[in-house]
């Protein structure tokens, strides 16, 4: 906590602001629930017994700490030292488990019997369904109908884990609409249900709470880098949809001299457009038209198909501490294959965005140490890529 208080990534203001971003723009019905959640999280996070319980689950169930893997072949090919933080090796195959274990433990502590969640690629949905199964909570996952189609394996996984999956047919039928539907469910079920939001977005306290649950990524990575290389990396790279894996790893390095790079898909560049808006309970950069209608994002990876971004990323961008470049789907497909062929690691399509940026920018980073958060494994994307590459 003391590090957080002094850091550039400290606790948000009382109104849940990171600079001018964040806040709590929710229907009146949900205000007491957000207040209750904030108070419960504050209390739990300061309670050593809660932290011990979570740490035990992270260690014995999720498999933390996740290891650091240096990519010797790819690194020498690119002229950089490339190091991966292996969140793909966590139970359920991504970093998402860090957050859901925290939230589900908190939900139980708050006496909730049921959780709802939204999901894009299905990684958060699978993680939420997993944690719910583990802790004996009922779980319902909302998923855009388009994503249900392209991530059918994860849909089946969630059902195996005992969750109910509802396809959302409104709007763009992707992650944004899954969030809307999960919020509608929560408005109606708030007394018994916790909304297990999957990224560093939404109304206060979610962006802050979810960051704290993912802080472990950055804390571990910093210690591992110092131990192995005796220095901090020069560049820290992660993909950004809502931005939870990026926030997690950035939190460990925001107070170092490392460049922080959050890679957005070209078709979902919320920060790149640089226009603040309010949706899903937060003020943040948002893709929108001239009347404030939220635009549809387009990305080859369902997990990054989101027109907004977590408010703390907007803040880090606005003060110039982190950069948010974009990559195209074509570059992503190349990055996906590159890691598989050179290192024997199949990355999630989301993480292939970070790889795509690294391989494009490597000429400008010669000799530098580049730490990338490999936030998920690519098994879920194999069927889709089989179609793309054939």
């Amino acid at each position, binding site marked *: 906590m003391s590090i957080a208080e002094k850091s550039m990534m400290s606790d948000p203001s009382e*109104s849940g602001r990171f600079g001018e971003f964040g*806040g*709590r*723009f*929710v*229907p*009146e*019905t*949900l*205000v*007491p*629930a957000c207040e209750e959640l904030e108070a419960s999280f504050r209390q739990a996070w300061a309670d050593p017994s809660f932290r011990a319980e979570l740490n035990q689950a992270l260690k014995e169930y999720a498999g933390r700490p996740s290891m650091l893997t240096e990519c010797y072949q790819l690194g020498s090919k690119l002229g950089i030292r490339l190091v991966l933080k292996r969140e793909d090796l966590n139970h359920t195959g991504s970093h998402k488990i860090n957050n859901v274990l925290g939230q589900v433990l908190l939900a139980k502590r708050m006496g909730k019997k049921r959780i709802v969640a939204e999901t894009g690629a299905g990684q958060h949905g699978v993680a939420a369904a997993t944690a719910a199964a583990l802790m004996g909570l009922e779980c319902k996952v909302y998923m855009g109908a388009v994503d249900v189609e392209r991530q059918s394996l994860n849909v089946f996984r969630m059902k195996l884990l005992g969750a109910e999956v509802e396809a959302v047919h*409104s*709007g763009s039928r992707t992650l*944004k*609409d899954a969030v*809307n539907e999960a*919020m*509608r469910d929560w*408005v*109606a*079920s*708030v*007394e018994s249900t916790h909304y297990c939001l999957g990224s560093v977005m939404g109304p206060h306290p979610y962006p802050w709470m979810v960051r704290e649950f993912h802080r472990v990524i950055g804390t571990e990575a910093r210690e591992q880098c110092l131990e192995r290389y005796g220095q901090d990396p020069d560049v820290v790279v992660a993909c950004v949809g809502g931005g939870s894996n990026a926030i997690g790893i950035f939190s460990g390095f925001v107070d170092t001299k490392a460049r922080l790079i959050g890679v957005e898909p070209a078709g979902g560049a919320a920060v790149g457009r640089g226009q*603040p*808006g*309010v*949706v*899903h*309970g937060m*003020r943040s950069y*948002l893709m*929108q038209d001239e*009347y*404030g*209608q*939220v*635009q549809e994002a387009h990305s080859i990876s369902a997990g990054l198909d989101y027109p907004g971004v977590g408010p703390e990323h907007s803040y880090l961008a606005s003060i110039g501490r982190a950069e948010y470049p974009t990559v195209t789907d074509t570059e992503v497909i190349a990055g996906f294959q590159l890691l598989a062929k050179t290192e024997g690691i199949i990355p999630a399509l989301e993480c292939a965005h970070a790889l795509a940026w690294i391989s494009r920018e490597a000429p400008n980073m010669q000799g530098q140490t580049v730490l990338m958060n490999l936030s998920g494994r690519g098994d879920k994307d194999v069927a889709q890529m089989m179609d793309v590459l054939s």
Partner: protein
Amino acid sequence: MPTTLTTLETELRAKRDAGRKLLVPYVTGGLVGWTDAIRAAAAHGADCIEIGLPFSDPVMDGPIIQQASQRALDDGATPVSILEGVRTLDVGIPLVVMCYYNTVHHAGHERFAAQLVQAGISGAIIPDLPLEESALWCQAADDVGLSTIMLAAPTAPDERLPRVCARARGFVYSVGLLGVTGERSTLAATATELARRLKQVTDVPVIVGVGVSNSAQAVEACRVADGVVQGASVVRRLMEGGPDAVGEYVAEVRQALDTL
């Protein structure tokens, strides 16, 4: 309580104090037939009309109003085109808008408030702008005499209700149930419970909306409340039967309320 009442609130209080139950139909702006639907509703006993400005991500709305919003957007409706349509209306009762906050935020508080006033709008309901986030907008609205209608929800603890009511202008929108807009087979117990709690702490008109689905439920709610909003039930009729169906329905609810 403000030192001077807004024109909207003055008018609604006068009707309420004269013993009339207030009837507020909701019409999605930009939906085929929407201006005629407003005229029909006004002609058949509405006291105020709520005009929805369609938004891409309406989190407080259920399937009917979502569908209506999407249709209107697909037909090219924008806040500007709807406010132009509003200017052509001369229906003799106050009109308010219901819009999500990004519409306001994107236009800018002062500019949006001015646009509403210029179009002849008397108030605004912004369902995703709770009390804690409302100060800037409320100031801009107050400055031009526009009423900000605050929502109160069944989940609010007792201490919160007086604070919500103190900030409400025109009327307090008493959310009838835990959930989103849409028709239900029965009126939720929360509808009258919350209206009763609000009546105990405020003299501002208390109008129940969300889940008040027919004339019988409207009567039930108005045994406690000062009036009702009729949303999905009106919009469904507009989509299925056009403006005449809206007029007939509003007349039916009016007649039922007048028996109280």
